[in-house]
């Protein structure tokens, strides 16, 4: 949807649409709890990996992957970005990517090790 399209949607229509599609506009309480359980399990896996005797680089890749998973679950479901207007996602991604890129460059120029 473009910004022009957002404007054309009147609030009354939005409410009506949400009333129709109800269930999949918001996850149910059960779904939230299920995500919570996944988060807990993933954390346990991360801690488990920490104690395993695997190479540092492998550990880093796995841990970053797993925390990215947790991060995404919270952002997309708990913070509702998956169901909300794209504009919110765009702002958040903009800030996140900007921070990620400029600081990786800065630390690299000072020969810092990121991981």
């Amino acid at each position, binding site marked *: 949807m473009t910004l022009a399209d957002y404007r054309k949607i009147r609030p009354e229509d939005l409410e009506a649409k949400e009333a129709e599609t109800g269930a999949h506009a918001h996850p149910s309480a059960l779904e939230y709890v299920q995500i919570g359980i996944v988060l807990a399990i993933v954390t346990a896996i991360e801690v488990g990996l920490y104690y395993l005797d695997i190479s540092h680089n492998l550990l880093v890749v796995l841990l970053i992957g797993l*925390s990215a998973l*947790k991060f995404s679950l919270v952002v997309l479901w708990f913070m509702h970005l998956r169901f909300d207007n794209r504009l919110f996602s765009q702002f958040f991604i903009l800030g996140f990517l900007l921070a990620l890129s400029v600081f990786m460059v800065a630390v690299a120029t000072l020969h810092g090790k990121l991981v």
Partner: protein
Amino acid sequence: MEQAVVSGHQLETSTGLDNRKLLMWVFLASECLFFGSLIAAYLLYRDRSVQGPYPSDLFDIPFTSVSAFVLLMSSVSMVLALSSIQRGNRRGLQIWLFTTAVLGILFLSGQAYEFTVFHHEGLSLSRNMFGTTFFVLTGFHGAHVTVGVLILLSLFTMTLQGKITQEESLPIELAGLYWHFVDIVWIVIFTLIYLIQP
């Protein structure tokens, strides 16, 4: 009759999105830069400490894992609080909101305990790069959690006064966004700082 600028009852915005929710998301985007800077400083100085104690001397991974788990669960209770009031369940809102605040306080207690233990082991702001960057990064995170707890408790009080309704539940949603953000910052910190050590 013209619709005036009344932020509490925003009916017609150019994007159709509530002003306050838009504000909160832009704010969270900007907070990425704030925490990004602090994390970058930590990573830059990660193995530059000239003297100990070092992370491997001090980190108690099991303890911090529990703490991380507590914060994650507080995100669950937060979203359940929002979910409750969106279905008109005021009782549920109160219970889950209070639970979130309690879990937040539990997390903060864990942080306070950890800080105290580290301090007893000789770590301080001026001891080495680890002390400097660790305390400032996790300290600012803790300050954000504290503000979050204060907001949650204020909202809880408002729910007791009947001021939060199914139609006017935006404050809960906004508090939730802030709270989840603080949680995802901890997800990043827990991994990059605690689990990935030099």
